[in-house]
């Protein structure tokens, strides 16, 4: 019994370490230590659990070794550009683990109090949705399946019916759990299907929201598993993660000026929108050499990266150019929109990988007020986040979305492959402004061209 108390005390200590770890995440200087403390907390939780009497170690060791090899290998080898799909994968495995914990709890003991039964059902439902939802998100992010929203008529009805079915079966199940194993398995299968169906209608550029939300779900699944086995450390840790995911989801939705419901159900970007004002005109192309002359004379430069930067793997080239411009006496700043990239903070990680110091990275709200003092703004692979239609054109589908006001800079250089519209399918009047120059071609090649010009 004393041992039991010791285990519970150690769980409290773990909870403190998790909270402290998250607190230290509030600054890049302390974040690494925070992550370490959090990992120590996890290790203590695992060791103390293993000390619980009567565990058969041989099976545990098998699972731990397998999981460690797979986890460590993927974590070491993944490219920074592929971070969103990596996080989706880890997320999914956490959700699946919670589902399995719930299942094995039911398998071991089929007559439990109603409260435990409901907790088991929740861990199955949330864990299942997290698992397959993350798997679909992974597929979309890594290009294994089309990132386009997949819509069909009656989609929301199908999802609602499925959800209702799960709730009904859950009711039937909780009335007589002992003799309802088939019902239980059906619920698990339906939860897995639900996870797939709720993520397929969501398009690639809305993935930051989906990943944040799934992150939250994986925490909630752990929470539910905690109620199943009546373990407070699972509840504390799960709740922390659940809260974290919800906050990130809110930030992402706000940065797109859309509600969560709109992101989840509208299939944004599936249809081509036509702005009534019909932005027309001539886009002014510019050569690499002319861009060089512009940049050579610039005193203040702002770089706005978008997902295209990641696609072109151009983060190192952009850093090199920034270095050259700084040596040339210009002030170089990176302006990062909250939804640039495929997950929250994606661009920051890419630039950090390329050795851009984090005090050179600026948030949208900090850079916009000084944009008029900027000589040249370079937009690399970003489109909707710099679209002035969000500010000016009330009929635009992205109207009201906060953007980085690059059009207020002296000159805007837009690096882009072609004149194609962005993810939202919205025309970008920025391209037709008098102070905008289009530098067509692969972003990495253009950047390397500029670097070569400077070195001439």
């Amino acid at each position, binding site marked *: 019994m004393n041992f039991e108390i010791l285990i519970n005390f150690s769980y409290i200590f773990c909870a403190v370490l998790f909270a402290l770890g998250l607190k230290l995440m509030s600054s890049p200087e302390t974040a690494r230590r925070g992550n370490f403390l959090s990992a120590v907390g996890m290790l203590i*939780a695992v060791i103390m659990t293993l000390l619980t009497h009567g565990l058969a170690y041989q099976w545990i060791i098998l699972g731990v070794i397998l999981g460690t090899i797979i986890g460590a290998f993927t974590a070491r080898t993944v490219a920074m550009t592929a*971070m969103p799909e990596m996080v989706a994968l880890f997320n999914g495995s956490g959700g699946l683990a919670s589902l399995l914990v719930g299942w094995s709890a039911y398998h071991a003991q089929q007559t439990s109090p109603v409260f435990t039964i409901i907790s088991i059902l929740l861990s199955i439902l949330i864990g299942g949705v997290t698992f397959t939802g993350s798997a679909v998100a992974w597929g979309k992010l890594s290009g294994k399946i089309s990132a386009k929203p997949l819509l069909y008529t009656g989609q929301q009805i199908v999802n609602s019916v499925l959800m209702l079915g799960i709730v009904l079966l859950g009711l039937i199940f909780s009335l007589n759990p002992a003799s309802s194993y088939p019902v239980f398995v059906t619920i698990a299968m339906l939860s897995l299907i639900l996870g797939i169906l709720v993520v397929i209608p969501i398009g690639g550029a809305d993935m930051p929201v989906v*990943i944040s939300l799934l992150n939250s779900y994986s925490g909630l699944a752990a929470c539910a598993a905690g109620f199943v086995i009546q373990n407070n450390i699972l*509840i504390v840790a799960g*709740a922390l993660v659940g809260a974290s995911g919800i906050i990130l989801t809110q930030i992402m939705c706000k940065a797109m000026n859309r509600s969560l419901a709109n992101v989840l159900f509208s299939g944004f970007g599936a249809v081509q929108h036509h702005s009534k004002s019909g932005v027309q005109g001539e886009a002014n192309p510019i050569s690499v050499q002319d861009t060089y002359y512009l940049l050579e004379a610039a005193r203040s430069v702002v770089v706005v990266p978008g997902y295209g930067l990641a696609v072109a793997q151009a983060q190192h080239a952009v850093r090199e150019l920034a270095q050259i411009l700084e040596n040339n006496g210009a002030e170089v700043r990176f302006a990062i929109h909250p939804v640039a990239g495929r997950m929250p903070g994606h661009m920051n990680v890419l630039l950090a990988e390329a050795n851009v110091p*984090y005090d050179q990275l600026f*948030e949208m709200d900090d850079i916009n007020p000084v944009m008029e003092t900027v000589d040249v703004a370079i937009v690399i692979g970003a489109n909707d986040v710099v679209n002035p239609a969000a500010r000016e054109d009330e009929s635009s589908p992205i109207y009201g979305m906060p953007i980085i006001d690059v059009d207020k800079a002296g000159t805007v250089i837009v690096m882009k492959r072609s004149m194609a519209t962005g993810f939202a399918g919205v025309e970008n009047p920025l391209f037709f402004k008098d102070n905008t120059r289009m530098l067509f071609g692969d972003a990495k090649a253009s950047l390397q061209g500029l670097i070569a010009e400077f070195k001439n």
Partner: protein
Amino acid sequence: MTTIFLFFILALSVFLGFELIAKVPSTLHTPLMSGSNAISGITIVGALIAAGTGQTAFGTILGILAVTFATINVVGGYLVTDRMLAMFKKKPSQGQS
């Protein structure tokens, strides 16, 4: 009574989570996500118990699978977060700007 207790813990933890996460700068949102993701791997505690106390073959298999996936989540999550955070650097000296 235990149930009430667990709900108490849940409510306070959610509140604590909101307070802590709101202070994380957007620069660190990706590592925050992968790091908190690793924390959600705490379900490994439940998985260990399931794998170590399984009375039937099927129960044990469920447990082993749970341990494997939870471990992927924990080990992978923490390592990849550490790898990312190691890259965040301040400007070395007084910049020339």
